[in-house]
Structures are given as C-alpha cells and as structure tokens.
C-alpha cells in the first residue's frame, strides 16, 4: 500500500520546532498583531462609539486593517524565510546529497515551499480570532471574509514561490534575499514605476497614470493600515491589478460578491504561481552546483570589457582618464585589500558606480528645473524628494550590508583566524577594514548631496516669489538654511552611523547571513517603528499637539524623522524650535555614532575572540583620537611592543 511520505517537510518542520526562535518570533508576531488590532479598534471605533449598540456594524474598519497588517507581514517575512530554502542547502554543500536521494527535484521544491508556508500560515491563523471578532461586530459580509482569507493565502503562496525561484537561482542566501525583494518589488511595482517616470517627464498617458495611482493606493493600503483606500482610484483598473496581485481582490466592489467569486478571478495569480514554480524547477537542477561568484564584481568586469571595446575607436583611441595601477600592499594590508580588491572599494568601480547613480539624479533634478514642478508653498519638488528617499534606502542598504559583512565575511570564509594571528592590533584591523566603507560612503553621499543642492535651489527660487503672508507664516521652518543644515547633518552622521551599527552586528554575530539579516532588521525597525508610533500618537490619539510640547522631540527617536520632516517642510512640528530640533538630532545621533564606534574599537579584541595587551590598547586609543576613525598617518607603526 502506498503511503504518503514527506521526509523533507517532516525534517524541516522538526528542525523549526526544535529552535527556540520559532516560538519567540511567533509570540512576538502575535503580541504585535493583537496590540495593533487593539489599537486599531480603539482609534477607529471605541474612541468614537462607547455604547455596544453603536459599535454594532462597525467591524469593517478593524477587519480591513487587520487584513492589511497581515499583508504587510507576508511581504516582510515570506521573502526572508523562503530565500534560504535551496540557497542555504547549497551553502552547506548538502544540496547535492539531497539530489542523490529518490526525491525528485519537484518534490524537493514542493516540500521546501510547504515547510515555509506552514509557519507563515500559522502567523496568518493568529489573526483568525481578530477577524472573527470584527465579523461578529458586523459590517463584514461572509464573502468579504472568505475573499480576504483567500487573498492572504494566495499572496503567501505567490511571494513564497518567488522566494523559492530566487533561492534556486542564486548561490547564497544573501543573494537570494536581495534577489527576492528586488524581484518582488519589480513584480508588484515595476509597471507603475515606469508609468510614474513617464509622468515626471510629462509623457502622460491616462491609463498608465490611473494604473500608477491604483498601485500606489494598493501599496499604501498594504503598508499603512490607517490610510483609507479611495475606491475611486481602484475601480478603473481593478481587472488589471487583480490579474496578478491577490491583494487587489480586496477592492471594495469585488468584496460585495460571494466568497467563491474570488476563485475564478484569481486564476491569473494562480498561473503566476505556477509560472514561478516552473522557473524554480528549471533553476534548481541547472544551477544546483553553480559556483559562488561575486556578482557585482562580475558585472563590473563585463562593463570593463565593454568599455574597453567602446574606448578603442578612432576618436578616443583607448584614452584612460584614471589609471589605477596594480600595486602590492603597503603598510596597511587590510586597507589595501579593501580598497584595491573589493568591488565596492576599488576607485575605478566606485567612479562607475557614482556615475551610474549621479547621472539619473542629475537628469531628474534638471528636468524638474526645466519643467518647474516644485511645490508652491514649500518650494521643494515632491518627485525629487521621492528620489531622495530611494537614494537614502539604497545607501542605507549598501552601507549596512557591506559593513555587516566586514568581519562576518572573514569568519564565513575562514580567513579571520589567520588574520588574528598576525601582530596587527584588533582596533587597527577594524580601522583598516573601514577604509573601503568610507569610500563607499563618500560615493553614496554624492547623489544625496546633489538632491539636497537642488532642493535648496528650489526653495530659494520659490521663496523669492512667495507672498508676504507665506513668508511670515513659514518663517524659520521653511528656511533653506535650516533645510541644508538638517539634510547635510543627517547625511554626515547617518551614513557612518549605519556603517558602525552594521559593523557592530557583524562583530557579534558569527554567521554572515544572520549578521546581514539582523542588521537590516534592526535598522528597518529602528527607522519605522518610532516614526509610526510618533505619528500615530500625534495624528490619531492627539495626546499632544503640534508645536506646543517638548514631547515632539520624541519623534527624533527615529532617524528618518528629521529627514522626512525637513524634506516635506514639516519642521513646523517643532514650532519655534526647528533649529534646536536639528541640533538635538545631531547631538543624539552624533553621540550614538561616537559611542558605537568607540565600543567597536574598545571591544574589537574580545569580540574577535583574541587576546590583547590592555596597556597597549590604551596607547592605541590615545594615538587614534580622530572622530572619523582614520587619523593615523600612513607608515606609522600599527602597534607598540611593550
């Protein structure tokens, strides 16, 4: 008799059940979900209606927001937990053994996918009591209920399959992780972004614009539970959006129908899942033993070849503007390797990277100058602001990942012990390791500063034509000087701060993958949670009002606050004290930077697991008093002998 056996799924689930973090994460997730639901209930219903009879029929808002939270959870967690399913096996060199068993590649993929869907579905199941309560409150039809459940399930499967395909393609978990988020972003927002860009260049197309609005609205609904979705945007393009993206099924008009309605209308989504699974099936064998490659370096090398070919023509005759000679290490070997051998440390590649990031920014800013679409009141261009945020996200990601892998990468490649057995002092190892990051920071700061420069220009030029009323009304907080101060200080402090946070996490956590995930999770949480809490407290609870309380400064607990407020000219939040707010922000994060940097340098030896003489460490500290971390002159001795 044939018995159903799922050995891989059993093994994966057993492993998950044996890990303490499974229960910790589940408990945290449940706690956050229930607290958020309680909060939503308070601000949407209980705050306004206290009588039980009044509450009846008002479960819809709670229901919608809980579902939105679960979508957010899926988009956040599912890529992270699926990206390692195959790539992790490849990293551990166990995937070959798995292929040698009687399990077919399809079975392996299915069992692996199920092993990640089970914990995600258990997360979704957590919301069942909440959905039940909101259903019991009334205002939610059975059809809406089932469609929402189906849309959540389908989204989890879709995102999971995308993670599976990326995991099958990429060689390492980190590559698969980044790949899944990039592919997911392009899958859900690629077309709207293209249409959005065409919008910026005034190549307006009605259908494209409406589609863009529909997508933006959809995204806002998924990530921002309090953003009320405006049906008028969505109805126009519901067919298209519902074709591939399950959350689009939740558009108001659809949810009026019976629950079974969702099944035929989600056929395109299901087909996309099948397509992604087929891709995973193709990749899983073909790329099972693909060698580990530095993809970025390979891209640069391909570019090298192409540029070389292009350069050899009658006009340029192979002219070389900047010749980076190959030299042997000087007195700082680690810094030499970081700046001469790493793809994001080598000068010529960094120049290319700078050109690749700077040119689009310049084009965009110049087009705004020509087209003249800055905001009339603030003078800032919202399109340029959006690009600034994208540039910030890119810079934060790159710097955090690079610095988190500085030490954990050496550990993963088993090269750290050999390095630690040399006489270079631990603090010096850290400093030299940072040279490459410092170069990268400078390159990434360029587009940010360019945008700030243009925004300042817009503010000055618009400021010259504002009415007297506006000048009085917004005096101080709209000042270009204030904007420049806030923007430049945040660039100067946040980039090294992100680098040192990433480095500190890489110093403590042994695995490279875990170090990257932890660093990104920490930075993301730190940026978003205090900011959202602060805004919620302001906007929804009204515990304190704009401009009349020092409690406003609590918003500065999130590093993105000052960037967002200055960019959208909302420094009025700190009425009469915008300069003080910028100063407090500088002191707060500058102090934090100083503390983390010093902690890393002081505890480098202990965290690296190496003995070091304390007296010379003190001397070392005295030698390196520079804040930027690289005050030592080249050629000076790296350590003193007692």
């Amino acid at each position: 008799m044939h018995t159903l056996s799922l050995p891989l799924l059993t093994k994966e689930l057993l492993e998950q059940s044996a890990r303490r973090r499974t229960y910790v994460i589940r408990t945290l997730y449940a706690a956050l979900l229930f607290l958020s639901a309680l909060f939503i209930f308070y601000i949407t219903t209980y705050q306004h209606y206290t009588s039980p009879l009044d509450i009846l029929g008002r479960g819809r808002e709670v229901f919608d927001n809980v579902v939105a939270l679960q979508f957010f959870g899926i988009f956040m967690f599912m890529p992270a937990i699926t990206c390692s399913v195959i790539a992790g096996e490849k990293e551990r060199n166990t995937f070959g053994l798995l292929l040698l068993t009687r399990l077919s590649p399809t079975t392996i993929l299915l069992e692996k996918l199920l092993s990640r869907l089970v914990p995600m579905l258990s997360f979704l199941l957590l919301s069942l009591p909440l959905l039940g309560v909101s259903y019991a409150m009334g205002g939610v039809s059975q059809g809406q209920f089932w469609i929402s459940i189906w849309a959540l399930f389908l989204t989890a499967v879709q995102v999971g399959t995308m993670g599976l395909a990326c995991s099958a393609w990429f060689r390492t978990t980190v590559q698969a992780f980044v790949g899944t988020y990039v592919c997911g972003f392009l899958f859900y927002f690629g077309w709207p972004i293209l249409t959005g860009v065409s919008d910026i260049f005034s190549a307006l197309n009605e259908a494209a614009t409406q589609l863009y609005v529909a997508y933006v609205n959809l995204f806002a609904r998924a990530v921002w539970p309090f953003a009320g979705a405006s049906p008028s945007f969505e109805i126009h393009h519901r067919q298209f959006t519902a074709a591939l993206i399950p959350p689009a099924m939740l558009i108001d008009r659809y949810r009026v129908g019976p629950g079974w309605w969702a099944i035929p209308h989600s056929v395109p989504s299901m087909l996309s899942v099948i397509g992604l699974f087929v891709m995973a099936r193709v990749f899983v064998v073909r790329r099972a033993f693909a060698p580990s490659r530095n993809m970025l370096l390979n891209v640069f090398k391909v570019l090298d070849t192409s540029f070389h070919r292009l350069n050899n023509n009658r006009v340029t005759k192979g002219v070389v503007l900047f010749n980076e000679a190959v030299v042997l290490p000087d007195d700082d070997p680690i810094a030499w390797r970081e700046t001469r051998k790493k793809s994001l440390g080598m000068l010529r590649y960094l120049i290319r990277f700078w050109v690749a990031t700077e040119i689009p920014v310049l084009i965009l800013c110049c087009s705004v100058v020509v087209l003249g679409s800055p905001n009339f009141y603030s003078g800032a261009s919202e399109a340029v602001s959006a690009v600034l945020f994208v540039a910030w996200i890119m810079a934060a990601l790159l710097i955090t990942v690079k610095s988190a892998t500085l030490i954990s990468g050496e550990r993963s490649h088993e090269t750290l012990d050999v390095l630690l057995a040399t006489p270079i002092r631990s603090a010096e190892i850290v400093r030299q390791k940072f040279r490459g990051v410092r170069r990268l920071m400078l390159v990434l700061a360029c587009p940010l500063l360019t945008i700030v420069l243009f925004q300042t220009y817009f503010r000055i030029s618009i400021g010259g034509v504002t009415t007297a009323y506006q000048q009085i009304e917004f005096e101080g907080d709209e000042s270009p000087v204030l904007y420049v101060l806030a923007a430049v200080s945040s660039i100067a402090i946040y980039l090294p701060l992100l680098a040192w946070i990433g480095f500190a996490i890489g110093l403590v956590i042994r695995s490279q993958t875990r170090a990257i995930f932890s660093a990104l999770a920490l930075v993301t949480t730190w940026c978003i949670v205090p900011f959202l809490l602060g805004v919620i407290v302001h906007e929804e609870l009204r515990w304190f009002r704009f401009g009349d309380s020092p409690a406003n400064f609590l918003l500065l607990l999130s590093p993105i606050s000052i960037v967002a407020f200055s960019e959208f000219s909302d420094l009025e939040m700190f009425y009469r004290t915008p300069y003080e707010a910028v100063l407090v922000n500088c002191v707060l994060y500058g102090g934090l930077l100083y503390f983390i940097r010093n902690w890393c340098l002081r505890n480098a030896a202990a965290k690296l697991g190496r003995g070091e003489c304390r007296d010379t460490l003190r001397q070392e500290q005295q030698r390196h008093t520079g804040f930027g971390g690289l005050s030592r002159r080249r050629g000076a001795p790296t350590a003193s002998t007692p």
Partner: protein
Amino acid sequence: MSLNTEAIATAPVEAPATAPAVPATPDVVSVRNLWVRYGKFTAVKGISFNIPRGEVFGFIGPNGAGKSSTIRVLATLQTKFEGNVAINGVPVDENPDRIREMMGYMPDFFGVYEDLTAREYLHFFAAAYRIPRERRGPIVDDVLQLTDLTHKIDFQVDSLSRGMKQRLALARVLLHDPDLLLLDEPASGLDPRARIEVRELLKALREMGKTILISSHILHELAQLCTRIGIIEAGKIVAEGSLEDIFRQLALRRVVHVQLSGTSNGLVDQIRAIPGVDSLDVQTDRIAIKIREDELAIEDLHAEIVQRGGRIRMFQPEAMDMETAFMKLTEGVTA
C-alpha cells in the same frame, strides 16, 4: 618529490626588524594544567607538556579530543582558559601581542582570499607582520622557493590545488621567521603526493631548527617526523614523550604469540608460572602470552619455554607501530 632543497639553505633566516628579543629558555612551549571550557563543555582537562627548542612535537588524538583548542590557546585565539601557558617563557594570557611575533599559526582549514594572487597573498601577510617593505620581496621569493611555488606566484590563490594551498599557508607562517610553528592538521585532506610534499617540507623546517607543534591523524607520518608525541583523548594527555618512550611504555604489556608443537601436560601452567608473565590465553592454534617486559625480556621468554621442554613452531611478538600505540592508548571517547 619536487621540493627545492637548495632553497632551504636560503630560507628566511633574517628576523623581522620588529621581532622582540627571545628569552633563552630551554622550552619553547610550556603548558601547565591547561583547562579550556566552552560553556558547560570542557574540551581540555588539565593537560601539561613542554616542547624543548628544535623539537617537533606531534599532537595526536581523535576528533574532539582537544588538540585544536590547545593549539588555539597557544595561538592567542582562545582567550578563556585556565592554567599556565607560555611560549619562550612569555605567558600567553599576559602578553599575547608578543606571542604573535614569536609563532606562526596554520589552522586546520584554509580559507582563501579569492581575490588575491599568491604573490599578493604573501605580501599581504608580510605587511601584516610588519616586515619592512624593502625586505618583503626577497623574503617572499625565498619562502616561495622553499615551498616550491615560485612558478605559481601570479596565480589566483583560489585556483591552486589543495596541496599547493597548504604549501602556500606554510610559506605564510614562515614569512616572519617565527620560533614556533603551530600546525593544525596540515596534511588533512591532501592526496598522497601532496602529503609527502608537505612532510618533506616539514622535515626541512625541522632541520632548520624550527620548533614545531603539529597535530595530525596521519599517525605513521608523525612517526617519521616527530621527535616527541603527545596522545590526547577526551581532553587529557594519555601518553607523552619520545616515540621510544611511548613504545616502551606500551610494550611493558606486550603480547607474544607462541605456537608449540604438541603441548605437553603442564607446560602451559609452567609458562604461566614464569616470573614476568602477566597472563596467558590458550587459543585454537596458539598461545597468547602477555608479558611484563621490564621483568621478562622477549628473548628470555623464548629461552624459558625452551628450557621447560617446549618445542617452538612460531614465536611472534606483537608488532608495535604508531597506530597500534594509538589504538592501545585511546578508547575512542571524546571530551
């Protein structure tokens, strides 16, 4: 064997400019009552041993016995330990910076900087060991010649075979001309040819007067190379000394297989009564006699049996090699 013996004479004998003066102690390594704990797990349980200057000390033990932990303590990479550990009289826990100048450490794995060539790799570590820039070139050439890697100087490290990588790692530890080489399983995972090459290289280093602490599972190779060995099991040293000492120590309970043509009545009891015979086991075709060699030599046993009228058809003392010694001394348990 392609080892360049000429290069041995030109090996880097110059000490780095920054090398500290080494105290003239007879023992390069001194370990006293060393304990290493990882949480509740104790990897090393109070071991003690010395390595005199110029000796090659073989550290033998099963997986998980505590060899690598001990070597990591000596390499200053294990900060939490108890006991007195010193190199050239300098305590490891008090002055690790100075220790790092005096030793070269080769771990049991070989992580590569995939982006470097062999030349860049060695120059990288030469700079890390603070060898003056003008001296790095000749020293790198010397160690490459010694390890027979000159022809691979501009190859990517990642592209070298495992044997070549091991030789490159040996070249690296020789760059700053350390007193002590700590080699953690240098021949593990190598094919026979590469293993022989590494062994010959180590012999050459021994002849150059280097003090070497080497751990390995390839027991017969250590027998050819080491002047002293320490056998470690479950975090404890079960035997330590020169090879002869250990063999003698084990041979004290040596088994001699004897086949007699027609055992007369009472001969077995007579043999059992010979002073120095520990026990006797009558098997189908032979008698296995366990003797205490310090009381009864093998030759004397032969004479005693003959004297008692025994007609010997076969007389075979059990052979004693490194693997037999290892198997006799260890029970296959881990810490």
